[in-house]
């Protein structure tokens, strides 16, 4: 929740869209809090989506320049998601090896570092000059759709 609150407070938006940004941030935190309290995944997912939407509002009316803090935001966003889903897992008062918890914390932190790296790569790639041709845009769109389709296929096969 602390991570989500920090992320919600991040977009420094001024102007007409500021109330919308604040509402989205507040709603995101409320959904996350409800999800964590009731251990429901649906409100958690909604809260994360609203948090992302709040970040998107920043760019719909924000500066044209690329946000250089995006890798850190991405790491925080993933950390928030990971910790939220960890909290909603069925919890039993079990005797446990300390090593298991430490390894999990390590895995989450490594994932967040990885997320920052991936986000940085995406931002750098977006800044590279490849020309503003329609073909390049079509290739980009096709790649994104194909990547998502492959992921959806993998998930469906497992389910």
């Amino acid at each position: 929740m602390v991570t989500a609150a920090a992320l919600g407070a991040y977009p420094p938006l001024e102007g007409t869209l500021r109330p919308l940004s604040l509402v989205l941030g507040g709603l995101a935190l409320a959904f996350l809090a409800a999800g964590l309290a009731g251990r429901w995944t649906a409100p958690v997912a909604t809260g994360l989506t609203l948090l992302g939407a709040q970040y998107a509002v920043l760019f719909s009316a924000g500066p044209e320049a690329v946000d250089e803090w995006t890798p850190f935001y991405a790491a925080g966003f993933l950390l928030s998601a990971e910790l939220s889903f960890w909290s909603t897992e069925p919890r039993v008062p079990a005797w446990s090896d300390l090593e298991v918890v430490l390894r999990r914390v390590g895995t989450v932190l490594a994932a967040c570092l990885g997320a920052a790296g991936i986000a940085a790569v995406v931002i750098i790639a977006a800044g590279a000059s490849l020309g503003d041709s329609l073909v390049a845009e079509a290739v980009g769109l096709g790649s994104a759709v194909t990547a998502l389709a492959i992921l959806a296929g993998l998930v469906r096969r497992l389910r």
Partner: protein
Amino acid sequence: MKRAAAPKLRVYPALAAVGVLAGLALGRPELVALAAPFAVLAAVGVSLAQEPELRARLVLGAERQVEGEEVLVEVEVFASRSVERLTGLLALPAGLRTDGPNPFFIRLAAGERRSLELPLECERWGAYGVGRVLLRAQDALGFLVSEATFDLQQPLKVYPSGESLRSLLRPLETQVFAGNQVARVRADGIEFADLRPFVPGDRVRRVNWRATARRGVPWVNESHPERNSDVVLFLDTFAEARLGAAGSLDASVRAAAALAELYLREKDRVGLVSFGGVLNWLTVSSGPVQLYRIVDSLLDAEIWLSYVWKDIDVIPTRTLPPRALVLALTPLLDDRAIGALADLRTRGFDLAIIEVSPMPYVEPGKTESERLAFRVWQLRREAIRSRYRSLGVPVVEWQDDVPLEAAIEEVRRYRRHARTVRA
């Protein structure tokens, strides 16, 4: 083994898709950068996740144990592939508990065997099946959950911890076999009974020389023989009073086990009639094997709710041998058992009733009408006791926290002073 996707696996690709599409729509790489890690993480998690092929083994330290003691259980888990997070649970039936690592949460390397020792505390007597192990494995990134249940049930018999008794209730009449009880009849034995004049056929070694010298004619000693007796433990299983983990049936079973043990040690023959919704019986017999039979039969004793009217005609005749002492352990809650015991007495059986009191398990109630009902119920119970006493049957109220010895002594005192009525 059942494999399922964690909720995260549905949400992460969805977040990635929304982020990428929003990024494309707005033309902002930041949103794609935000979504990409979710897509990559889900793809990596799904690609790396493998079925762990879990195995479990269970070793039970003992097949038999006495109530209140501990049995050590060893649960061994094995996985052919590495399991980052494994949650295990040995499902325990009510009556067994452990303070050991159950449930447990561990990590298993590929091919690793891990043993966990669980000391099981046998809280209540009974016949149990121990060994249902539930395992839940999660991959490193938490996208997939595999669950497996292993039915490795092994029998565990928990015998009731009977209290030690020093003396027993003796039947009015003994049987013809040798035992430890001094019979009322006169025959060859050790215990001196009386003197009488010598008659042809008497053995010379039985002549009492002092009495003969004093009287001038031969007198002989008479003695009481040592015989055994038949005891039938009558367990009323129609109904019980229960409050939480404790109940009147538990007390009855413990008392029956203690009585059977001591009677058998005294070379008596002991039988068991469990009279309730289901009728169980053991014909009278002696020896250590009979003790095991009785205790095993007691472990099966439970309350079966039944509205079928039953009287003693349903009890096989040979389970109630003539001249046997019928020692009933009953909470006097069911009219069928109450009627059957009265019927036994009217048929001439030597009957004694230890009333396993339901009072510790009953609360008088809060309202005035509830308290009135409680008092009426108590009066009704007293009327039942009076009815038995009028038939010459000793009824002694016994509570679980009072030594059984005290109840036995009370019955013995009653029988010492009461006139024996023969049918």
